[in-house]
């Protein structure tokens, strides 16, 4: 949230619209990609990559993580570490 002056907010609004367009395009892209006859592995990687890009856009711009304070970012890094551990360890049960 840079300054609260009217032009700063106007600029912010323009970025929000730009991000919206990007998200819409990426959605169409990911749906399109599902019609390509890719192997399951490749499809997973591609779909998750596109979803991650969309997610980062929402998080950075809409959720203002781009300009967020250190303490919130530290909290999120901690949550993401345990998220990844929780995501993969159970399915590696047989390793």
């Amino acid at each position: 949230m840079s300054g609260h002056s009217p032009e700063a907010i106007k600029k912010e609004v323009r970025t929000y619209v730009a991000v919206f367009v990007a998200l819409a395009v990426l959605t169409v892209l990911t749906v399109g990609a599902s019609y390509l006859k890719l192997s399951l592995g490749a499809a997973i990687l591609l779909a998750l990559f596109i979803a991650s890009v969309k997610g980062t856009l929402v998080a950075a711009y809409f959720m203002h993580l781009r300009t967020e304070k250190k303490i919130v970012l530290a909290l999120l890094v901690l949550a993401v570490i345990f998220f990844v551990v929780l995501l993969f360890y159970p399915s590696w049960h047989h390793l």
Partner: protein
Amino acid sequence: MSHDASHGHELPFWRKYIFSVDHKVIGIQYAVTGLLFLFFGFCLMMLMRWQLAYPGQPLPFIGNLFSETAMIGGIMLPEFYNQLGAMHGTIMVFLGVVPLAVGGFGNFVLPLQIGAPDMAFPKLNMVSYWLYFTGGVLMFASFFVPGGAAQSGWTSYAPLSVIASSGQTWWLVGMAFLINSSLLGSINFIVTTVQLRAPGLSFSRLPFFVWSQFVTSFLLLLAFPPLMAAAVLQLMDRLAHTSFFMPSGLVVNGQVLEGFAGGGNAVLWQHLFWFLAHPEVYVLILPAMGIISEIIACNTRKPLYGYKALVWSVVFLGFMSFIVWAHHMYLTGMGPNLSAFFQVTTMIISIPSIVILTTLILSLWGGSIRFTTPMLFALAFLPMFGIGGLTGLPLGLNAADIHLHDTYYVIGHFHYVVAPGTIFALFAGIYHWFPKATGRQMNNFLGKLHFWPSFVLMNFIFMPMLIQGLAGVSRRLYDPMQYAHAQPTQPLNVFISISAWCLGLAQIPFIVNFFWSIFKGKKTDQNPWQATTLEWTAPSPPPHGNFVKEPVVYRGPYEYSVPGQKNDFWPQAMKENN
């Protein structure tokens, strides 16, 4: 509205004591409810001990009070025994110790120790308590539903829990309430500790109790939601007949199990459950370590030995507690690499516990130790937690776990940590902060009359369990006499049961002391123990808003016996010269 506008005039009774938003009233509500559930869970255990000591013999006097579904002619039925076992675990952990340690002590002491007027979100704090209360009522009521309460252990392993009677659904819904209560509570604790510290109170000047509650809150915040997810999945399995935890082709008492499409995985529940349950056991021990260090510093009249070592150990312990959970699952056909990983992390996590225990013991060196009642409990915590921690070593190595898994050795191990460990620390905390909550002191003689028998009896109960465990006696056995390898240890069962009942009697001095002292206890000023932390600068009991003038902190939490000072304690908020 930053603060209730209605504070101008006196609140109605129900707003002041029932639906209060004052962290102290909520803390006392949590503590009293927690103590009641601890007593209820203790009674369940005393019933189990009758069946273990004298299997199949009718329970005298109260035997015929129970319904036919529980006891026939005073002889306990196996399903009722399993209900007692499952609910003893659930009630003691989720309804007794955690609400008392985190809800009670955390809510009451933490804002006072950081010089805050209240929790950051008072209304959220009230909601947390009432969610906990509802969860407790559901758990208590589940005994009276058809089929009785949950009976698949406090761990509720699938598929047994999925095909269990309706009490299991009540258990899951009750757990959902308890999970969300702790979750909202942890948000409150984190924001309060970070945002509302008094001026001058940097993180390196925080009392260790606040550090332990702060780390505990992160454990609650990040570990409980996966159990919520697991509870949702198990509820779907039980009510909508999905098959998350139900493999294909199950055959239950002779018939193919209808209504389940199969394809699920029973080990999935264990992963999600233990992902919570291991941080949960650290939620049980960290606040206890916090209470113990406060009391040791105050009663040795000197600063703690290694404050930095303690803080780094508790933070490292909190982090590691998230990546050790599968040492509960060594024998579920886990792969060698994963099993090696969890063994290594389990060994690593034992180091900070050893550092904390050693540091607390070294804090006695050079002190002037006063053997007050809280100090007795705190000192007893050290060897007891020592045994609890050490008996975890053989269980942490999967080769030794082959023989010891799911035996009474495990029961002895975790009870040593929780019973003479955490619960002794909670008793110490009650004796220590009772004057702050009521302005009166608990009777010293009754305190010692409560301490010495309890200390001896705790060891009479849990040491024999370790011996039974080595003999390979399995846990959760309704009638141990069925197994030849358990028969030689049966006299130990009788000894344990009698000690358990005597331990029940040994709590009477505490109960009498607790209620008697509220009205008749010796009046005290605001700092009876001459301690240095901030809560002792507020009046006893502190008014709403806690401090008359907002405290400013000038030094660390344990400035005792500072050379060149008149008193042997230098409170954190006192100006330069005292």
